[in-house]
Each structure stands twice: as structure tokens, then as C-alpha cells.
């Protein structure tokens, strides 16, 4: 049975840290599901089927968390005892917030552009680059994970969440425009 006291990194036999090797992660994910997935226990007893269902659910959750940089950072902070309230916490970095407002205005005006679809793709590209930059900054904070660095990580995470939310909105506009093509 899957040891539920293990953290997600231990489950996958990976070192605890923000940098995760994507190939190793998916390889191990597949190896684990191969032995624990309910389909491996189709003829087993109720009890075994329940254990395998719980185990496979846990592995899926762990994989989804470690795969996504924002979920991974949130999880790492929790491991260090920092629980973030996703709804309430926002950054107070004024420059960042101003920039966000501008991006948001740009999204609102995208339909007035000559080529709205190109414009929205361009916007998405810039947001993705910003997130990528933050992902790079995040990695550094977890190398030693001093209290100061963890606070910095928390601030970076706040910004990442901001951008992620905006990206979701951008993608939904892109989807609408694509459907109209």
C-alpha cells in the first residue's frame, strides 16, 4: 500500500526542490501507475481495489502538483510551513500591479485591433515569458530556502498567480476568437 506519510517528492523518488526533471517525473509516474492503477486489480478483492484506487488517486494528485510550477511552489511552501490564502494574498509591488493593469487594459481592447487574434496571441506570448522569468527566480529561492528566501518565494508566487489568472482570461478570449475564425 502506498505510504501516505511520504511527501510527493519521496513518492516519486525525487529530491525535494523546485527544479524537477520533467522526463524523470513522467517516467516514474508511469512506472507507479503501472503497478497501482485500479485496472491492475480488476479481479482483486474489494479491499485491494480500494487501496489501489486511493493509491492511484494520490499518485495522480502528486504528479499534477509536481508538474505545474505554480502548484509545485505552493506545495514546497506548505512543506516549509507557509500556507497561502490564494484568495486574499496579493502583491504590493506597485510597479508590477501597474504593469498588470496595462496588460488587462490591453486584453479588453484586443477586439478593436486590426487582427485581434494575432494581438491576443502576442499578449499570451508576453505573459508566458513573464511567468517563465518568475519560474527562474523561484528556483533560486528554494536552493537554500532560508526564511528570507521563502518570503521572496511567497512574493514571487503571488505574482505568478496574478499572471496565471490573466493568462486564463487571455486564453478564453483566444478560444472565442478562434471559434469565430
Amino acid at each position: 500500500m502506498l505510504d501516505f506519510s511520504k511527501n510527493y517528492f519521496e513518492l516519486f523518488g525525487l529530491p525535494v526542490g523546485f527544479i524537477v526533471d520533467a522526463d524523470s517525473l513522467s517516467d516514474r509516474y508511469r512506472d507507479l501507475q503501472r503497478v497501482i492503477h485500479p485496472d491492475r486489480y480488476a479481479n482483486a478483492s474489494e479491499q485491494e481495489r480500494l487501496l489501489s484506487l486511493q493509491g492511484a488517486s494520490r499518485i495522480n494528485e502528486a504528479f499534477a502538483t509536481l508538474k505545474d510550477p505554480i502548484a509545485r511552489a505552493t506545495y514546497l511552501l506548505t512543506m516549509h510551513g507557509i500556507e497561502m490564502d490564494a484568495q486574499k494574498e496579493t502583491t504590493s509591488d506597485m510597479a508590477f500591479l501597474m504593469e498588470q493593469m496595462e496588460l488587462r487594459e490591453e486584453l479588453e481592447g484586443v477586439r478593436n485591433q486590426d487582427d485581434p487574434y494575432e494581438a491576443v496571441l502576442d499578449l499570451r506570448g508576453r505573459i508566458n515569458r513573464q511567468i517563465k522569468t518568475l519560474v527562474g527566480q523561484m528556483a533560486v529561492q528554494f536552493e537554500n530556502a532560508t526564511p528570507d528566501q521563502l518570503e521572496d518565494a511567497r512574493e514571487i508566487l503571488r505574482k505568478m498567480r496574478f499572471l496565471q489568472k490573466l493568462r486564463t482570461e487571455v486564453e478564453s478570449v483566444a478560444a472565442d476568437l478562434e471559434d469565430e475564425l
Partner: protein
Amino acid sequence: MALMQIAEPGQAQAPHQHKLAAGIDLGTTNSLVASVRSGKAETLPDEQGRHLLPSVVQFGENGVVVGEAARVAAVTDPLNTIASAKRLIGRGVEDIKSLGNRLPYEFVQTETAVPRIRTVAGDVTPVEVSAEILKTLAQRAERTLGGDLAGVVITVPAYFDDAQRQATKDAAKLAGLKVLRLLNEPTAAAVAYGLDKGAEGVHAIYDLGGGTFDISILRLNKGVFEVMSTGGDSALGGDDFDQLVAEWIMTQAGIQDDADHMTLRRLMQDACSAKEGLTEADTVPLDIELPDGSRWQGSLDLERFNALIDPLIKKTLIACRRAMRDAGVENGEIKEVVMVGGATRVRRVRERVGDLFATEPLVDIDPDRVVAAGAAIQADILAGNKPDDEMLLLDVIPLSLGLETMGGLSEKIVARNTTIPVARAQEFTTFKDGQTAMAIHVVQGERELISDCRSLARFELRGIPPMVAGAARIRVTFAVDADGLLSVSAEEQSSGVQANIEVKPSYGLTDGEIETMLRDSIDHAQDDMDSRNLREQQVDADRVIEALEAALAADGDRLLNDEERRIVDAALAALREVARSEEISAIKEGISAIEKTCGFYVERRMNQSIHEAMAGHNVNEFE
């Protein structure tokens, strides 16, 4: 249970009892059953050599007729002959009305949300109609394979919601079948193709059946089929092409909307023939019998036909683009597109899908049979006939699950395209002093407003210990299993009290209703429910015994010391003894007793396999 001994080449293990298993494609228009025989998945024909079973059931004065004969009868006896029950299954009366008023059946006014159709043989639900089709196919398989089926895999559209999946499983239960898995149709098709060709990389499966459309994006990697995203429309298919053609003919021939059922049925069949003719010819002649007995003659050419169906094809392409976005893949990354479902024979569909993915679609396997073949392969593995097979299917939930919050909004708990099985917990609190009950409404869908999503069920939590407002912490866990079916459990955190959950499925049958149906069904009228239950218990006990025996043979010596081995052997002997008794409760107790005594061994085996899977991956090497 009839067992055949088959020595499969390349299987080094002790002679394994080969279990009979089948894959069933329960389609809107046609259904099929397939099985793996001599290593090959084949669809099984009926005694007349026909593979396709029309999904039509006649509940006539002289009993139940399924298949081709019922399809023919549909023209003369439309009210008692139910076709396309798949469009109705797991849906409410209101949903069905919104599907269009062209269904020729008489719906009975009932208090429950499950629609009932009036026939001369009594009122029937879509679940019962599907159960008749499943029974017919299972009988065909048992006759051909020469024994009882140990289990079946039934395919469902990937885009089926929880209610539709549950209803399909209920139909199997009514038909007396053991369901090894509900498998998504596109995934089944991928299995049939993937194993045949050893394909790797990202693939798209475009599945346009008679009444449903699915698109799935999968990644194939060393025998693991990982569904990245799925999308579709569970009320769009080739039948809708027929409908458009029929409407066009009506306008041309001056047939009124209120024409009689028989004329409308005949018209649908003429429209279907025209569509089929156009897969080869560029124009087809039409010769239509009018309500007054006279005839109208005309023709339909490809250009007109394409113009009629283009809006529907466009809807499918929009879903394809969304699925690609959800999977995070670009056009160029998709290696191949597999075409599934009878409606993909339409030339225009192939053209437009090929254009979208910029690749020639794969049509090597008969699009009608590929789903059943894939299901048969999976059934063979799940039944335990291929213990060394590496294949694994990782599917996703097609639509987000949410909870109703204040203001009639949906709060998403599990996002669409999350890999299943999945479990998510959410904490709730009471808002009144001494509150002991709480209502939770679960919906499925992407929209923000509850009214725009599909209601799945209402849960009532009872037995919360009385506390001041806000003090109770009720943790509700939503779990979706590998079949895509939801279950809910709840616990009050501070006291550890399990809250009772009463489920009111919005569009499903309750367990009690299924029980009543089983009791009432013609097949079981003479059959005593008790003896049926006894048989089920005995089969369960046999399964536990076999599983344990297989485990002991595989690793009993390695994982158990002498003392432990004696305990397991004794428990096994005790269950063997009781399994032959005629006492349901004794067998039940025997099973739970062995689960308790041998639980340590079960856990040790699972640990061992996890340990072996992770062997070679050493954490320390990074530190």
C-alpha cells in the same frame, strides 16, 4: 463458471485459467460485441453472420425483439419500438424535450426525473432498453465462445457525464453482467490502433458515431495511453446528418412537419440511405413515398449534401481545437488522427478533419468495429488473461465537477481533463448554532451559473454533532474512480463523526428502483432473487480465492514466513469451505474475515510492487 484451458505461447507461467471476456460497443445506432480469440480481437457475428446489431428494441405484444427485426418493425410499430436509447440514457425528461420534438415515443408523466416510454409491454426506461441490447450481445458472445462471460468492458463516449455513465452501468447490472470497466470510446479505438502498430507520440482520435461526437488527444508511451484532453458533444452524430437531409427532402417534396410517425421514420431511413450512397457516388436518386401513397422523385448531389452538413462538421472542429488547446499541443505535434464511428465514412468529414490536423486521417480499421475491438483487448487484460501485459490506460474526466455556492454559482472542485482516478476534499462549516444537517448540490459543466451546468445529485449530510455556528468542520471528499463515476463521503473533523450521505441522483435511478426492475424483469420472474444473490456471492468468493491463490503462487514463498503462510493457508481453506455453502451471510462473513486476516499480505504485495517499480531510482544519487 465454464473455463477453457488455453496454453498461450510465450507465457511462461503455470497454465492459467483463461477467462472469457468481451468488449461491448453500445452504440446509438448499432452495437457490437468483440472478444480476443487466438490473440486477435474480433467482433462476433450472430447466427446469420451479421456483426452489427441495430440498437433498436421492440417492446411488442409478443415480447421483446432486439436488433434487425426491431429495426424493420420500427416503421410499422414506431410507438413500441425504441431506437437511439443512448441519446436518452442518463438524461431527464426536460433534457430530452430540448433535444427536439422529433422523437416519436409517448413519454409517460412521472414524478421521477427518469423518462419512461409507454409501450404495449409496459412503461420502459432507456436503461432497460440498453439492458436488452447488452443481454442480446452477451448471449451472442457466450454462445460463440462457449461459456459464461467472466466480465465485460463497455464503451461510452468520452464526453458522457456522470449520470450517463452511471445509467450505462445500471443497464449492465440489469443485464446481469459484471462490468470490468467503462472505457471511453476514443481510448478503446486508440488501443486497437496503438497495439496493432506500436505507435508512439501524440495522437488525436476523432469519433463521430450515430449520436455522439468525441475528440480525444492522447500521448502513447511504452504501452501507456495517457489521455491529455477530451471534448465533444454527447448529442451530435451521423443521425443529425440524416435529420438535415430528411428535412431538406420534406421541403423539396412538400411533406408537412406534422406527418405521421410512419412517414417520418421512413423518411429518416431514406435520408440515411442517401447519405451512405454519397460516400461513393456524387449524386443519388431519391424516390420517396408520400403520406397519401403517391411518390416524389428527385436527387441529392454531394455539393448540396456538404452544404447541409457543414455547420455540424464545423461544430466538431471547434471542439477539436479546444481539445488541442486543453492538451497544450499545436497542430504540428499531432502525429496521426484516427477516424472512428460510422459517420467518419462521410467524405466531407474526412476532408475537413484532414485539413484541420494537416494530416491524412487513418481509416485502416473498420470505423464501426474499432471501438469494440479495443474494448475486447482491454477486457482480455482486465480479466487476467495477460498478466504480463504492460498496457495501461490513463483517462480524464471530460467535464468539470462543481458545487453550488451562494448566489447559484458553481465552484469547481475537479477541473475538466484531470486524470482519473482523483479525490478532492473540501471543508464546509455550519452557519447556524446546533445545525445537524447540510445540503450539497453537485453539478457538472464548465459554466459559472448553476443553471447552465448539469445537475448530478443532491447530497444531504446528516448526523453532524450540534455545535455553535462555524465550529463544525465537515470534510467532504469527492472521488472519481477509473470509470469516471463520482462518489462522495463526509466526516466532521473535530469529532470524527461520519456524516450520513443521502444521494438523490438528479437523472438516475436509485438503487431501490434498480432492485425493483431486476425483480420485475421478465428474465428473473421465475428466477428467485435469493438464488441470484447466492450465485453472486459464490462468484465473489471464488474471485477472492483465485486472486489469493495466484498471489501465493507468485510470491508467497518470498513475502511470507512460515507462520504467516500457515495463517493465510488456513484462511484460504476456511473460505473454500464456506464458499460451497448455501448461506449468503456465511459467505459474506467468510469474505470479510479473509480480507481482515490476509490484509497484511495484500498490503505487503502492493508495497513490494511499488518498491520494485521504483527500484533503480535512488533518491540518494541526487543528494
